[in-house]
């Protein structure tokens, strides 16, 4: 276990009755890093965050945050972390100002320190005069930014953001992304970010850990993870026997691997442009109907698909899809 790491998990497990939400996670996050924790709904992301934030203790294994064990010295961890959980944890009957001042006082700041910190945070979250309105009147984006401000009120060393942009419109999401980058680049804050959005992990994270069914199935920089799948990806959606289509494509020179997922065939290749024509011909000749055929570079979803045989659930559309609507 590295003493200098900002976050360390060693064999962390967490059960809820017979359900194993986190099934033995090992990871390390270095100071100043943005670590993206990517996985579908129910993969165990939020449970691990709750362990690291001292809200629940691990059933087994050890976790250290900012140098302190979450189970043995949770108070020391709490002084050093900021947390914005999946749903903004606010008091709708307070004003934004009351809420942030109270939050500062809960962290032991004097009234003068709290007032001074409020001024700094107002500049960061940029919600204007709304800061003096009741929180219950805020839009989703404003509430999320206030929640982020509350997480930052005591200058935490490590910031946990649990799906910080879920449910936000594209503009609000982009604003949160900017704030995350600012916190990391200007203030050197370590950020542990869970997300189910591929673009978010790709865009923000220095390294990504992919979790599925409570286990870390892959870890690395987004670029390295994508390269592990191949340079190019050919995706064909077919009607007919997908196994026959798979057999037809597997025999083509230059194709590294072929996977089928329901009616979708995914082939990886180092030079996709060179092999897409033979793929089209092979599919045409094997008795299936090709509904569409695309060539693209790999995404983190391809990494997830290769590792688990499933796509990451897209219960809520990522930015690109949402923006098109």
């Amino acid at each position, binding site marked *: 276990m590295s003493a200098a790491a900002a976050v360390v998990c060693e064999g962390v497990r967490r059960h809820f009755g017979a359900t194993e939400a986190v099934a033995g996670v090992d990871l390390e996050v270095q100071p100043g890093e943005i670590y993206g924790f990517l996985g579908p709904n129910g993969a165990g992301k939020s449970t691990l965050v709750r362990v690291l934030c001292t809200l629940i203790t691990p059933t087994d294994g050890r976790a250290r945050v900012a140098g302190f064990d979450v189970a043995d010295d949770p108070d020391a961890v709490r002084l050093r972390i900021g947390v914005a*959980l999946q749903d903004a944890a*606010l008091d709708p009957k307070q004003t934004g100002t009351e809420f942030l001042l109270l939050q500062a006082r809960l*962290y032991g700041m004097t009234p003068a320190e709290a007032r001074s910190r409020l001024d700094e945070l107002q500049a960061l979250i940029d919600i204007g005069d709304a800061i003096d309105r009741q929180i219950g009147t805020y839009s989703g984006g404003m509430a999320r930014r206030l929640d982020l401000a509350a997480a930052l009120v005591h200058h*935490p060393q490590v910031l946990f953001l649990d799906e910080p942009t879920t449910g936000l419109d594209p503009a609000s999401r982009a604003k949160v992304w900017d704030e995350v980058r600012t916190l990391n680049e200007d203030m050197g804050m370590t950020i542990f970010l869970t997300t189910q959005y591929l673009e978010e992990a790709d865009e923000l994270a220095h390294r990504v850990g992919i979790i599925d069914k409570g286990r870390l199935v892959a870890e690395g920089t987004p670029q390295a993870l994508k390269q592990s799948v191949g340079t190019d990806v050919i995706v064909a959606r077919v009607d007919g026997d997908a196994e026959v289509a798979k057999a037809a494509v597997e025999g083509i020179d230059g194709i590294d691997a072929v996977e089928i997922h329901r009616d979708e065939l995914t082939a990886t290749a180092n030079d996709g442009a060179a092999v897409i024509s033979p793929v089209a011909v092979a599919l045409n000749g094997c008795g299936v109907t090709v509904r569409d055929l695309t060539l693209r570079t790999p995404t983190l979803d391809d990494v997830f698909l290769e590792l688990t045989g499933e796509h990451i659930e897209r219960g809520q559309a990522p930015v690109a899809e949402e923006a098109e609507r």
Partner: protein
Amino acid sequence: MTAVAIPTPPAARRTSFLHGMRVVGYRAVRSIPKEPETAVPAIIIPVFFFVVNIGALQNIAEFADPGFDYKAFQLPVAIIFAVTGISRASMLVTDIQDGYFDRLLMTPVPRRALLLGLMIADFVLVVALSVPVLILGFAVGVRFETGVLGVLLFTLMGAMWGLVFTGFPYSIALKTGNPGAVNSSFILFFPFAFLTTSFLPQEALTGWLSAIATWNPVTYLLAGMRALVSDGWDWDAIGKAFLAILGVGILTQTMALLALKGRVARG
């Protein structure tokens, strides 16, 4: 990765139990005027019962025992009706449901301060609710044998009772996180407030009601409060009243703290 910036040192400090309780209590007190729906029924109910009971029973009670002051007898009942079951438990449930309670749990504030801070607001509220009931009592001619000090002790007794009773709704709130269950906890008010000497002195009660009233702590609380109004410094009655409060307090506060411990452990 950009790691050239030097992180700002954390501004957080470990906080004392008292500091935590004060900050949590400050928020809870400020929430009272934002939720008038909590306080308004709590003042209407005791005033209603005080007026109706006196209207219905004063003549009979005073006819049966000449010299008996039924208004003075009813004033402690009105106070108990005002303060029993009043708590910030509904606010606690809302905090649990909104995730705000999780945020509080991630601060360095000691866990018990999160609960006891809410009780500061409860204490403020029950004292505030006692004032109009006392004013009504004075307006209809009730006078305290023990003078101003007696009035203060009388108010303190009512407030302490209200405070220890909050352990019931808080334990339900922490155990269930369900607003419906917390609202249902109001039903506990009835056996405590009615299976006792609310309407008649204990010697006038018969059968099962007399037996239950003997075991009901409110019987001793009412006796102590009535002593302050009508008899003077009857330390035996006053002492038993405080013992009744203490006994119920040990039970309810233990329940609430265990429920808090369970909630924290479940995360």
